[in-house]
C-alpha cells in the first residue's frame, strides 16, 4: 500500500512550518486518521500547539567503540580509519577516544584486525509519542549537547514509516534548514509543502527549499504565511510562484500559541483557520485522485 506522506518544509526558522503542519493535521483529522511526525528534533514544538504531554517511546543511540586493551595490538588501523578524528594514539599505546567527535560510523570496528573493538553505545536523543482524538503524534528529541540531529531524524522516520500503514495520512513537520536533517525527513515524502513569508529572507529560503525538492524529485505546493505583512514582497512571490494558500497574520495566532493551542482550535472561522482547512481539502483531493 502506498504511504500518503506530506512533509512541511520552509528553510527559514520561524516561518510557520509547525503552524501549517499542526493546522493541516487537525483539519485532515476531521475525516481521516492522521499520523503527525515532528522531525524538528532540535526543537520539537507540535505537542505545544496541541497541548499534549509526550511520553518517551525509546532512546535513539549510536555506536560507540570500546577498546579491549588486552587484545589491542596498537597497530593504529582504527585511528587511520576514523574520518572524524575521534580516535588518536601516542605511538605504541592503546588509542584513545574523543567521544564528542565520534559519529558512530563503526569504521574502527570494521578495520580492527584483531577484533579488539567492542560495541558500546551512547544516547543521542529519543523518540516520543502522544495521542489526541484522530491524531497520533510521534516526534524526536535531540539530547542537548549532542550534535547529530540527522541520526535522531533517521530513527524517528524509520519508526514513523513502519507505523504509516495504520493511518490514512502522514504529515511530517520538518526542521529549518536545507541540510541532511531535512533530507532524511523527506526520504519517503510524496508531496511537500513549502512555507514562506513575504520578506527578502522568505524569498531566499523559498528558493533554496524548492531547489532542494527539485533535486530530490519531490513535488511541492507553496503556502504564503503572514501574507499581509508586506504587499510588495507578497506580489513578488505571487508573480513568480503558484501559491496554493495564503495565511494572514494577526495577534490571535500568537495568542493561540501562547495558550499552547492553535488558531484552528481557538478561532475556527479566522481567515488563517479557513485557509488551513482549504489547504487540507486540497491535499485530501490530490491524494484521492492518485
Amino acid at each position, binding site marked *: 500500500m502506498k504511504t500518503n506522506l506530506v512533509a512541511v518544509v520552509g528553510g527559514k526558522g520561524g516561518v510557520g512550518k509547525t503552524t501549517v503542519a499542526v493546522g493541516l493535521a487537525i483539519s485532515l483529522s476531521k475525516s481521516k486518521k492522521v499520523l503527525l511526525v515532528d522531525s524538528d528534533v532540535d*526543537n520539537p514544538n507540535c505537542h505545544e500547539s496541541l497541548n499534549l504531554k509526550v511520553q518517551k517511546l525509546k532512546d535513539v543511540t549510536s555506536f560507540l567503540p570500546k577498546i579491549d586493551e588486552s587484545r589491542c595490538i596498537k597497530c593504529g588501523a582504527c585511528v587511520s580509519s576514523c574520518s572524524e578524528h575521534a580516535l588518536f594514539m601516542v605511538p605504541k599505546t592503546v588509542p584513545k577516544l574523543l567521544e564528542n567527535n565520534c559519529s558512530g*560510523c563503526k569504521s574502527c570496528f570494521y578495520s580492527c584486525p584483531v577484533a579488539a573493538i567492542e560495541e558500546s553505545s551512547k544516547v543521542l536523543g529519543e523518540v516520543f509519542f502522544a495521542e489526541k482524538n484522530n491524531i497520533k503524534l510521534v516526534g524526536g528529541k535531540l539530547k542537548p549537547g*549532542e*550534535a547529530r540531529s540527522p541520526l535522531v531524524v533517521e530513527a524517528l522516520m*524509520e519508526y514513523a514509516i513502519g507505523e504509516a500503514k495504520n493511518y490514512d495520512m502522514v504529515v511530517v513537520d520538518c526542521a529549518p534548514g536545507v541540510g541532511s536533517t531535512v*533530507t532524511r525527513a523527506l526520504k519517503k515524502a510524496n508531496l511537500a509543502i513549502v512555507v514562506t513569508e513575504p520578506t*527578502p529572507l522568505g524569498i531566499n529560503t523559498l528558493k533554496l527549499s524548492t531547489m532542494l525538492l527539485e533535486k530530490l524529485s519531490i513535488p511541492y505546493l507553496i503556502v504564503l504565511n503572514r501574507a499581509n505583512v508586506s504587499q510588495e514582497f507578497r506580489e513578488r512571490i505571487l508573480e513568480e510562484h503558484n501559491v496554493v494558500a495564503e495565511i494572514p497574520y494577526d495577534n490571535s495566532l500568537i495568542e493561540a500559541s501562547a495558550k499552547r493551542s492553535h488558531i484552528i482550535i481557538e478561532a475556527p472561522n479566522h481567515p488563517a483557520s479557513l485557509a488551513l482547512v482549504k489547504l487540507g481539502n486540497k491535499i485530501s483531493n490530490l491524494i484521492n485522485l492518485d
Partner: protein
Amino acid sequence: MIEVAIVSGKGGSGKTTLASSLAFLLNEEKIKIVVADADVDTPSLHFLLQLKEVISNLNVNFSRKASLEESLCSKCMKCVYACQFSAITITGNFPKIDKYLCEGCGACKIVCPSSAIKIEETTTGKLTVGVSKYGFPFVTAQLELGEHNSGALVDTVRSKAREIAAKNGADLILIDGAPGIGCPVTSTLVGVSYAIIVTEPTPASEDGAKRVLEVAKHFGIKSGFVVNKANISNYREHIVSALEEQGSEYLGDIPLDFSVVKALSEGRPVAEYDSVASRAMRKVFFRIKEVALKL
C-alpha cells in the same frame, strides 16, 4: 579579542534582526568588529548588512561521498549492512549509495572485499568573505543543498573570521547562529565567551531557549537573553523568570513594531531607524556592552 554568538533554539525569534542591529551599533561606536553568519543552511544576515565588496568566494570541499564501481562489485551486500547511516540499499542486483544520506565515513569501503568502493571529496558549500556597506569585514557561507557537514562549515566560517580579526586587530567577532541545538549550533557555541539567546514570549520559543541554554551550559558558556516581540503576548513575565531561574541574565525587551518589518523589507538593520523597537534595541545594546562585552 572576544567572540559572542547569537542563538535561539527556535527559529524566527529574531537572531538576524538583533545581530544586524548589534553590528550596526558596535560599528557606530567605532568598536572594531568582524561579523560572521553561522546559519550556513539559510544565511540571511547579508540581506541586512549588504556586502559592498566581495573579497573571496570559494568552494569548500571537505565532504566525502562513497561511490560504487559496479563492474568490480561481487554483490555480497556487506556494505549495505555496514553503513550506520542507512545510505546504502539494495536496488536490483546491486547496492545503491544514496549520495544525500552518505556521510563519507568509509565504513563501506573497509568491509568491501573486492575494492569496489571509492571515497571522493565533494563540495560542502561556499565560503564568502567581504566587506559590509557599513565598512566592517563580513564572513558568510552557504551549505550545499542536502549536505550534512553544516558544523564543519561553521568551523570554517569561524576560523576565517578569527584570521581576519587577528590581522585587523579587531576587538570582537559577532556570530549570528543557526536555529536549533544540533551540529551547526554546537559548532557556533564552542569557544565563544558569551551567548546571547533571543526568545519571544510563547511556550514554543521558551522551550527552544531553554534547550539552547542547556547546550551553552554544557559547554560552560555564560549567557544572557533578550525577549523579542515582548509586547505580543502576556507570556513575557513567565519566560523572563523561567530563563533567569535557569541561570541566564536578562538583557532587555524589544517590542514588535512596524519598523522591524519595514527594516527587513528594505534590507537594513532596524537600529538605523528611529522607532520604539530601535530605541529598545539601543538599550539592549548598552546592556550587552556592559555585561557581555565589558567594553
